[in-house]
């Protein structure tokens, strides 16, 4: 599998806090990678650096063979890095369909309908998205991510606030997406991670603590101590 994304010695500090420190990370095309770690481990900062929402203090990011470290976020999106927000960030005053049409770069058309259908929101197309339930807003976020037709889809805690049945269909959706995109998933829900991820990266205090297949991560003592609990 060829390399899609690589970070070299990627660091970001906020004042004295090293949120992400010297992270060397690589991701192959077609992979579903989960990033896990305790709260404050730097997961969201790390993917924000990749998506360009935050500038790194040092280090570099190479995406699809191109150094994108200096590119503003919107140019990275144009190159195929899509980020779905942890805290839902939709256009609350626009309809679900208008939201997705904007993401598809064809605003004012019905171009968003297919993506809404893929996440199961087809019947909500005309509803003002601010009035959708929380779970549906999360799914709308994902639909917007899909509409960007990314090479790399970054999902930041996508199942947070979803019901069990919604999580079930979400897992199917990610599998479907992974057929033509690479997925980077930040997730707290361990069953979801174990089911979906090909590989798992564990972050702790801004550094990579461990990396490997789900069964290896589950068996790792260091990960147990840092994150999964020793219980």
């Amino acid at each position, binding site marked *: 599998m060829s390399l899609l994304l690589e970070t070299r010695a990627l660091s970001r500090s906020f004042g004295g806090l090293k949120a992400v420190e010297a992270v060397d990370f690589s991701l192959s095309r077609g992979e579903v990678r989960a990033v896990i770690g305790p709260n404050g481990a730097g997961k969201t900062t790390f993917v924000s650096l990749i998506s360009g*929402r935050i500038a790194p203090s040092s280090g570099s990011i190479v995406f699809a063979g191109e150094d994108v470290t200096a590119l503003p976020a*919107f140019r990275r*999106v144009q190159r195929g890095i899509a980020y779905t*927000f942890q805290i839902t960030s939709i256009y609350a005053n*626009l309809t679900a369909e208008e939201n997705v049409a*904007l993401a598809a770069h064809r605003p004012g058309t019905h171009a968003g309908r297919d993506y809404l259908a893929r996440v199961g929101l087809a019947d909500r197309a005309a509803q003002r998205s601010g009035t959708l339930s929380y779970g549906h807003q999360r799914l709308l976020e994902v639909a917007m991510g899909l509409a960007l037709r990314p090479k790399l889809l970054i999902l930041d805690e996508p199942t947070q606030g979803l019901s069990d049945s919604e999580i079930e269909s979400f897992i199917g959706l990610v599998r479907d997406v992974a057929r033509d995109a690479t997925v980077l998933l930040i997730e707290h829900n361990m069953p979801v991670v174990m089911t979906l991820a090909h590989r798992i990266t564990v972050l702790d205090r801004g550094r990579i603590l461990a990396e490997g297949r789900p069964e290896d991560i589950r068996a790792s003592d260091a990960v147990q101590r840092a994150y999964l609990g020793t219980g």
Partner: protein
Amino acid sequence: MSVRIILLHAGVILALFLMQFLASDYVVLTFTRIMVLAIYALGYNILFGYTGLLSLGHAMFFATGLYGAALGVTRFGLGVPEAMLVAIGLGIIVSTVIGAVSLRASGVAFMIVTLMFSQAAFLTVLYFGDYTRGDEGIVISDEFRRFSLFGLEADLANPVLRYNLALAFLALAVAVTLAVIRSRAGHVLVAIRENESRTAMLGYDTARYKLLAFVLSGAFAAFSGASYALMFAYAGSTLASIQYSIHPLLWTLLGGAATVLGPVLGTALMFLLVDFASGFTSASLLVVGVALILLVLFFPKGILGTLRQRYLPWLP
């Protein structure tokens, strides 16, 4: 574009056309002024209403058009059509430069930066009093307002020609506004207003779109200013003052921000209100103030904005 939208806007233009056969000379003159200034408000609305950027300095672009046209015909020997085009061109250049700088700020800082630039422009007008004649202003004599275009002789001192020209310009401005807001770019402008960071994260170059809105509004302002100078034969520094930065904001808010016809309605209502109030009191601005407070209480989204919310969801 749906038929009723076209019918509505064409209907308004037609009504304004027919009005000249019924109204008194005074009303015709007032409406000439309203239509010219409504162009200013229409452009301001693209920036403020649709893109969500509140500028407190658009008088500088209005003044660019105003002085560009006035000095163009009186000092540089330009004909009326050439002076109009030069003035609009200057408006585009000035707003591109000012926009590129001031759009680096956002929110309150953006308001202050535009206000400061505009005050600097106002003081510049006074500083070059030898050319601009300061607050006394340039009076454009009639000989500079005659022109021929496509073999037709025209004189802007003629009230009928002036009214219909103002109407044609207004119709053009409404059509351009409609085209802009229904275009792909127009949707992106609204997206920026609703959630700018999200719009950038969808891969849109938000800085470029904001500059586009800024320059469009600057061009409309200069178009309005140039028309004003040539049609009413006057360019004075009062028209470059802060008051003229606030006017389009009030007109837009009154009629309804982010509705196409709102600024036109707002401009007309404000003019008629001042006119009506000054008929029986010298404290006409007090009446205007009370009217604005009532507006905020009962029509928080402006007249057309509130109508759209309650009854006419299709209104653009």
